[in-house]
């Protein structure tokens, strides 16, 4: 019989990782956007 342990912090850890990943991506997109517009100036 397989015994599975429920980890109550699993969602929290995945949630935190998702947030951090989105933050990095968002920072990069904003940096590229600003660069593109600075080249237009």
């Amino acid at each position, binding site marked *: 019989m397989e015994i599975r342990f429920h980890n109550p912090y699993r969602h929290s850890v995945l949630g935190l990782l998702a947030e951090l990943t989105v933050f990095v991506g968002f*920072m990069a997109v904003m940096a590229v956007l*600003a660069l593109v517009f600075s080249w237009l100036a």
Partner: protein
Amino acid sequence: MWVGLKKRDVRIIAHYVGLLVVAVGLAMTVPLATALFSAEWDPALDYLAGISVAGGAGLVLASAAPRESVLSRQNALIVTALAWVAASIVGAVPLYLSGQYGSYLDALFDAVSGFTTSGLTLVRDLDHLAHAHNMWRHLTHLIGGQGIVVAALTLAFGMRGGGAVSLYLAEGRDERILPNVVHTARFIWFVTAVYVALGTIALTVHNLLLGMEAGRSFLHAFWATIACYDTGGFGPQSQNALYYHSPWFEAITVMLMIGGTLNFNLHADIWRGDRRELFKNIEARTLAVHFALLSAAVGLGLGATQYFSGEWAVIRKGVYHIFSAHSGTGHQSLYPSQWTRDYGDLALVAVILAMALGGMASSTAGGIKAIRTALIGKGIVQRVKMAIAPQSAVVAAKYHHLTEVRMRPDTLSLALLIFALYVITYVTGAMAGLMYGYPAREALFESISATANVGLSAGITAPSMPTGLKWVYMIQMWIGRLEFIAVLGLVASVVASVRGRKRRGRP
């Protein structure tokens, strides 16, 4: 009808404000421990004095409680408004005793700035301030960012029930994450603890790699993490973020700023498994649009300047400050005079708008808040639709904010009201700056920075600034943090009480 305060109300209010002052005294044990650990004996005495003042005054006030001290909504508003004042008054005591402030008023300015997570400072020699005082300055950001009243009364004193809910709502947190306020407060502290731990570790490693010695690396990392996650803006060095000259420092702190400006309800949804909420939420979408428009504007503006048109300068002096301003943090990597001298008008306006708009509601950020601009935008669209629809048509506006919500007229009118109050305060503060003879751009910049609890400075905020302007900025920081209603409630209650007393005194 305006309802004045009775003697019983005053005693209840004094009781809760007293509890809070005791809690502030308890918090001062952290800088006291820092002083003892760092062998800073004079600062240790400053904190012993601070704890004595807070403990003594707090216990006297707390003992005023009548037997049944149930907190009404009106009293909760007043407790909240006064709690921030009382915390600042006692919090300023050890800072003043440090000898690093020109007067008690300057120390009070820093305490108000700290608790409201603004970050403007009047300290004279920041680079030589004791560890204990830096610890206390940054700790005020942590306490204020989490919400003084809720933090103290739910965690330190285990307060529950309707009174706790009223205090929670009065403190500028308009939504409840969990049904129980104590659980909500603990969830907020849990998210904060995780971010503070991660930020401190990352920045400690960064500082060690920069060549700082271990203890200093850790302290600088801890303080920068608190200042950025709680969107405060204090720093242990007068050059603020510029001191580190590091793109890695800026990247890590921007991550913390974004984490701090996220609505705690959004954190809760994502941390409970609903990760798509981040992309569906109207407030997150609106904030992303603000960031995109302002990043584009700052890029366009800086691209035309003499000093900041290079690729790295656009990112590190432009985008970095959009994040710092929009989140309400106020960490800056420019000298104050550069804002109006070298930054260019378009980029400066982008930063000013970022400060004014602010982050998300129910976060540690200040300013108008993204949910309000989103609702006002939705309201405008709804009005246009109604104008062109047939007379019999019913035009309803819906949006997704944690759940599907149908926009109610009172929600829109409250958003418009708070928006208008922010704009009025921004302009009033700027007028005060102009009256003291400062140029328009600096006056507007500093006024918005104070009201939106940002902390970026164009150079007006200094120990030598006029005393009257110090008071103006302190009031702006206070009412901006509490989003007006609690302070207006306090003023209305006092006026109603005085009028009622005069009426009763007439023959």
